């Protein structure tokens, strides 16, 4: 039944593609949110939870399409070129800001190719290590890695990944360059951390929460401004020895440039509602994150975030000299 509905929705979406957007009656058909990563990952999960809830409010199916590749920039490029009618949206994380520096030949101009709907969530990161790694707190960790900078290895899930960005920021903050070990995705990186093949990693709570709870890895700090409800005993990086060290994998919802403001406003309202949905809050909590506030789930807040983050990451990436093209 549901497959049939989804199929019909898809067919309707194709056949009505040329229909003009009318802001008053929006939405009249299925909305597609493009996730620029493969299905099953953290961004995909966040999107599906929000899309499900937004469908109820908008009275139309909001379906998720995965267009992975090139660190998310392929999917973003697709949306940049899509019809600005509010029926094709993009949910992209912090990569939207970092790719502006990491990629020197993007097919779109990050700041001028999109309209903004709002921030969705900011997933905190955790600084973790293999479970038998010597240091027991963040201060100890910093001393240890400075003293053993030739042998300590930092895992990440590939260039542009959250773990790569956070690792880069960490090394930048402690002023010490360590050996980075890139992997193709979080899965293999986490496997090697569990197996003790690499020493430390900084990754999203979506990936580390269960491992920390299971005692298979050691956690030193969270990178959010406040402690997390699920880990009340885990200090923030600021508290534990790295003042001002805050990294969050923020997710934003975008529309192609030229989408009417009535449409983005309608989407913002719907997003804000979805972020108050109990199911969404509960699921987010299990992933160690929480929905963005109503004030953040607005076009203006997302625009400001994107601009400030591009400015913040540019020097860090340039200092590391690691580009993705």
């Amino acid at each position, binding site marked *: 039944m549901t497959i049939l509905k989804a199929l019909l929705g898809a067919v309707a979406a194709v056949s009505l593609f040329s229909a003009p957007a009318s802001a008053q009656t929006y939405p009249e058909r299925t909305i597609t949110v493009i996730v620029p990563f493969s299905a099953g990952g953290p961004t995909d999960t966040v999107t599906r939870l929000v899309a499900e809830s937004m469908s109820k409010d908008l009275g139309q199916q909001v379906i998720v399409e995965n267009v992975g*590749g090139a660190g998310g920039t392929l999917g973003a490029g697709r949306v940049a070129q899509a019809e600005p009618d509010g029926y094709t949206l993009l949910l992209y994380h912090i990569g939207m800001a970092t790719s502006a520096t990491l990629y020197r030949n993007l097919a779109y101009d990050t700041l001028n190719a999109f309209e903004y709907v709002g921030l969705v969530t900011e997933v905190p990161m955790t600084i973790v290590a293999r479970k038998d790694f010597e240091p027991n707190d963040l201060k100890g960790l910093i001393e240890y890695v400075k003293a053993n900078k030739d042998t300590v290895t930092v895992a990440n899930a590939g260039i542009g990944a959250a773990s790569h960005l956070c690792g880069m920021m960490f090394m930048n903050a402690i002023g010490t360059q360590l050996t980075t070990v890139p992997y193709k995705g979080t899965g293999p990186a986490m496997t090697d951390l569990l197996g003790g093949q690499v020493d430390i990693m900084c990754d999203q709570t979506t990936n580390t929460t269960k*491992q920390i709870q299971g*005692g298979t890895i050691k956690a030193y700090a969270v990178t959010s401004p406040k402690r997390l409800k699920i880990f009340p005993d885990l200090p923030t990086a600021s508290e534990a020895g790295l003042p001002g060290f805050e990294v969050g994998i923020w997710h934003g919802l975008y529309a192609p440039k030229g989408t009417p403001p009535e449409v983005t406003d309608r989407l913002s309202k719907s997003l804000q509602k979805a972020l108050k949905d109990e199911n969404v809050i509960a699921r987010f909590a*299990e992933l160690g994150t929480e929905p963005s506030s109503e004030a953040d789930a607005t076009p203006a807040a997302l625009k400001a975030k994107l601009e400030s983050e591009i400015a913040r990451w540019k020097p860090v990436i340039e200092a590391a000299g690691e580009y993705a093209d």
Partner: protein
Amino acid sequence: MDLVSNLALGFATAASPANLLFCLIGVLLGTLIGVLPGIGATATIAMLLPITFQLEPVSSLIMLAGIYYGAQYGGSTTAILINMPGESSSAVTAIDGYQMARNGRAGAALAIAALGSFFAGTVATFLVAIFAPPLTAIALEFGAAEYFSLMIVGLVSSVALAHGSIVKALAMVALGLLLGLVGTDIYTGTPRFTLGIREYADGLNFVGLAVGVFGIAEILRNLESEKTREVLMARVTDLMPSRDDFKRMLAPILRGTVIGSALGILPGGGAILAAFASYTVEKRISDRPQDFGRGAVAGVAGPESANNAGAQTSFIPLLTLGIPANPVMALMIGAMIIQGIVPGPNVAAEQPRLFWGIIASMWIGNLMLVVLNLPLIGLWVKLLKVPYFILFPIIMAFSSVGVYSVNANVYDLYAVAFFGLVGYLLLKLRCEPAPLLLGFVLGPLLEENLRRAMILSRGDPTTFFTRPISATLLAIAAVVLVVVFLPAVKAKREEVFVEED
């Protein structure tokens, strides 16, 4: 006894009418999807994810798991019938399975694949149930150096995949390795051989390549002359394996099960090797190696069992660590998270119903597959009787849809067309596509792990010999190499080659 009560809980969960129904839907859908060329489990599960919102967690995961092994199974069907493997493991089945089909023994090949898969699935399910935690510990011992050495064993063995000239097989492996280099270098972020096309930044799509060099090339070859086509269609004789077949499939199934179960546990691409490794072993120890590549029963039974056993045991890292072994597993994790279950090392303790329910449903699903598919063989074989002017366009259409659906990337379709022509050219040159595909799959893993091992050892190459598991694997590779180039064996190989001409 813990295990008994756990399994009892699992079977009680999986055998509830609703879950049985979802398991059935899953395997049916999976088989169907698998039979459609080019459309794999990943695309299907991604499309069905939204549906799982409405279901109970256990039911939805049972259904998704059903799709996974159903598709694995269905993929072998297309590999055998139309030489169109949907994934790396069925590429091996295509070698001898398709030859059996051309000899009019498509039914027997399908039945052998079904029975082998079922046996292997049963054994592997019990392995998962009994030994999951200790096996996980072994898997975690595998670091970059070990994976590198494992891939070396795989590459060295790949020569056995060829049934013609060794030189050509090596050339194909090398070509595959080169094609595997396309994409972004994960260590420096530099795009390699992408021709400036951003869409190839993540490399060539495996399904696109496989559909091209196997399927499209085969279609082109078939269109060459009216005669070969008629031969294929007219001679569908025995639907069931003969007594002799049963005798010859028994040992390969047992060996395939062992190989597949062992390699499936390794999350970093071990399962990919299972079918290839089994084929190599079967060919080496067979008393009739000249049959391989011409429809050898063991060449279907062994790899199919290995493939299915690997598919089951690859659930181990997911169930015990919450870490996906392949893209399908990553999707299953996504589905669990949407349901509010974040998989991790404690999932067995926190969600015993879910954990044991899935394990029990694996066996039930395998049983359903064999019960469903044995009677369906007649129907599948009839597919071959569909006139080519209907069948070929349908195959092309479905495989294009399938390839496109993976990443919604048009350049993947260009790759299918291009590699279709390349595959046809290779056929004309009597070069075989299977070693190429193996090189393509193993190349990136080989490079990635070699460089990672060197980074971790701080540039010290002795790491490959001082780590015991790695050293053992390299020793195995050396032995295989010696066997391949032993004069006696070589003479035998050449004899085979001459016969073929």
